[in-house]
């Protein structure tokens, strides 16, 4: 089922593939020359060799030889490396020329040579939108990213993002939390066996279980600064539309936008308060540049995204809010809070309420799920 990538791949890709193999074998403790020796004996392509070894299948290889360690044991060791921290499904390989590859990377000038993945590649058969943004977003930004992720997923669109903190994580959670058909697609800057940030370990596992997690790196590779811009390139390659929810003036999301514009992908940005420092970059995308049109179109609503993708809105998000409507006093506190982060002292001054009553109102709003307390400040919770 697999075609060899050696005959058709350009030289640069060949090099990248070699680098992947090197990294992969170094993480398993098996030398590259030995891997090639395995390949030679089995008459399989390098890609097929990797695939077989990573699922622990030693049957294509000749009978045991070499001081004390047979191919079966080597395959088992490879298998462990691929499985460790990755989950039951293990890591699989998707190489240039494999089925579905050309539909995503076919027209690209600079495709990856090989990707490790967990989950199902069927996720990429859907329309794909990237929802990206800053790791330190405002509460409103997080709420919108989540809502957007849920809405496009409900419309059957795949949500591509980087599984990072902030906007990325919120968009994925939105997609996972909706009942929609649109899967979440996470692109990592680390190996599949590593979660970065570590608190997203569960999120990463959920995305892999119901959608797809992709990476260019070997399973046990940790986070390195140079990996994340390359990760953003893959996000731009995989997605058909990029939405920037909130990005600072020098955020990594702007790199994604840059890669996406070079590939002619439509860009949308969520208009935001000009004073919000964490939105300076995304707001800038909406401004005309010296007579040229703005880089991005405004995104006020999930429908704006679906219109660009030419996807019919299948179901509108339900307007029912399961939370109990707050009483008048509580409502005034909720209104004063808005979508900002506020301290209890600030709220008490804003609505002129004694601290005792304020504490009681806040506690009941918290219990009802309207607000959440984080590190000394209150934030409003999205639905």
């Amino acid at each position, binding site marked *: 089922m697999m075609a060899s990538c050696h005959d058709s791949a350009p030289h640069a890709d060949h090099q990248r593939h070699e680098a992947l193999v090197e990294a992969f074998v170094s993480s398993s403790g098996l030398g590259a020359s030995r891997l090639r020796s395995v390949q030679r004996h089995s008459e399989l392509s390098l890609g097929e060799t990797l695939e077989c070894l990573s699922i622990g299948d030693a049957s294509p290889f000749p009978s045991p030889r070499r001081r004390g360690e047979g191919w079966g044991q080597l395959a088992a060791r490879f298998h462990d490396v691929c499985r460790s921290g990755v989950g039951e499904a293990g890591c699989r390989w998707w190489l240039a020329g494999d089925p579905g590859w050309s539909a995503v990377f076919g027209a690209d000038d600079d495709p990856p040579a090989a990707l490790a993945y967990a989950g199902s590649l069927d996720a990429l058969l859907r329309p794909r939108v990237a929802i990206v943004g800053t*790791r*330190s*977003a*405002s509460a409103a930004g*997080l709420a919108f*990213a*989540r809502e957007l992720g849920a809405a496009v997923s409900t419309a059957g669109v795949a949500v591509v993002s980087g599984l990072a*903190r*902030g*906007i990325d*994580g*919120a968009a994925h*959670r939105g997609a996972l939390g909706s009942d929609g058909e649109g899967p979440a697609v996470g692109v990592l800057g680390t190996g599949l066996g590593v979660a970065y*940030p*570590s*608190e*997203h370990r569960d999120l990463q596992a959920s995305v892999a279980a119901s959608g797809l997690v992709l990476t260019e790196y070997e399973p046990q590779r940790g986070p390195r600064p140079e990996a994340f811009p390359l990760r953003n390139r893959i996000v731009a390659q995989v997605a058909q539309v990029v939405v920037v929810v909130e990005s600072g003036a020098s955020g990594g999301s702007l790199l994604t936008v840059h890669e996406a514009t070079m590939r002619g992908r439509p860009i949308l940005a969520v208009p935001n308060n000009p*004073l*919000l*420092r*964490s939105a300076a970059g995304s707001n800038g995308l909406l401004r005309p540049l010296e007579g040229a049109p703005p880089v991005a179109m405004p995104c006020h609503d999930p429908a704006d995204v679906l219109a660009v993708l030419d996807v019919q809105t299948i179901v509108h998000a339900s307007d029912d809010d399961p939370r109990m409507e707050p009483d008048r006093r509580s409502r005034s506190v909720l209104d004063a809070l808005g979508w*900002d*982060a*506020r*301290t*209890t*002292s*600030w709220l*008490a*001054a804003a609505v002129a309420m004694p*601290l*005792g*009553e304020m*504490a*009681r109102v*806040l*506690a*009941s709003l918290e*219990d009802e799920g309207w607000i959440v*307390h*984080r*590190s*000394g*400040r209150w934030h409003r919770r999205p639905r």
Partner: protein
Amino acid sequence: MSDEPIEFDGADDGEDGGEDGGHQPSVPTSTPVVSAGGRLASVLSAQLIGISGLAVVVEVHASDGVPSFTIVGQPDGACREARDRVRAALLMSGFAWPQRRLTVNLAPATMRKVGAGLDLAIAVAVLVADGQLPPDRVRGRAFVGELGLDGTVRRIPGIVSLVDDLLHDDPNVELVVPASTVREALLLGRGNLRSASSLGGLIGCLQGIDPWPEPPDVSDDRAADVSSGDLAEVRGQPLARLGLEVAAAGGHHLLLAGPPGSGKSMLASRLVSVLPDLSHEESVEVLRVHSAAGLAVHGVRLPTRPPFRSPHHTASAVALLGGGSTAIRPGEISCAHRGVLFLDELGEFTPFVLDALRQPLEDGSIRISRAALSVTLPALPLVVAATNPCPCGWWGVPTGEVAGSPSCRCSDASRARYVRRLAGPLLDRFDIRVLVTPPDPDDLLSNAPGEASSVVAARVFAARTLARQRGVVVNAALRGNDLRRWVPITTAARKLVEARLRSGALTARGLDRVRRVARTLADLRGDAIESVLDADVIALALELRRPVLPDAANGAAA
């Protein structure tokens, strides 16, 4: 004259031998004995261990033989050097140095002798053993003080404890203390005190040639209370002010977090101003610790205001907790006993040091054990800690909350490391945690002062009175059955707590702490001593206990 035999009263010898063995170690005998084996003199002195004064008998034996001078009885370095100081001081004060074989024994021999405080007693004992001073002149007297080479008598730490404990052992003993410490020694206002400023002067007085110096006139001395500022100067910050008041009234430890310049230190330093005056017993405890730690003790009044100690974050464990290999010196936690221990930049302290603070805070005292001895020191401070939420301090401050505030530049990793250092079990000891934000310009510019310390202090005093009626000093000390008895809660309040217990946001221990804080809140509000706590105070106590630092992971996750 040193070679002339001296007379001695043989009855003294018998009295000495017949002394009752009740005292440990054997107390004041100043009896030289002359026999064929040489001459013996013994003089009473004392040394400081921890904050206790322990009696030490200095015995000097002078015999014929090659001139030498040996100190036995486990002297430490400083004490062994007494040999050279005593010799120079005697010669410079016009006395002859005995050309004999001198052995100094510091009894009890099993106890390590530390420091230079025995110098004066050794010098006096040498003179007696050599016959230059009649033994009856030193009988019933004790001597403490360090000698300079020119014969001056220098101050030593812990004079208050030395005087107090020696007089406790024998109320009739006459104590000779360095002139520079006589005011400190008089603080407890009892006993028969004499002062000495130089060895020559002292011997003159002992021989009856010169009159004893007059005790200083102390009638108009005032304890110099260092002003700690007034809460009226604090603008805005309602929750932080409340936290401060509750901490003072209930004895709950307080954590202030917030960006630089938000007023954390200003608030903390004003905590003392709302604490009630020390009682007599409390003052004595504080005075003993401060004297033993060598802190300046002002005036001759007992300190009336609680102490405020603010150790720098580079402080070592020994500096903070007390210790030392020989003399156990009280640490900052003991110096802040009955007062406020302010740990500024909590995140910069060594994690090991913070961890070591935990047990003493729970016990109210600290037991320091070394190979040779162990000492228990009082340690019952109210702890106030201040910290930034991240190394730069600006994490989590939303745009617009503080005009012109920079945004946080810390990397995720450095922020996580910073918070992890704090997130030890010590953090759980802070019942009150408040996020302090820089004051609003309107508040800063308004002419209306905040509530003054005196007003708050009156409420704090009333609340502490209620706590005393419950049988504890402060509500933070309510435990077990007392807690259940004094802290009933209404159904509405119960619902609030139950929701949090079920969700895991509150632990069983956290619940107890919330109830104690809520009790204090109700007391401050003026509720009756047995009132049932309503939802307002419980909610407010929960509010004061909410985490104010970023999660170790980050907390910015959606």
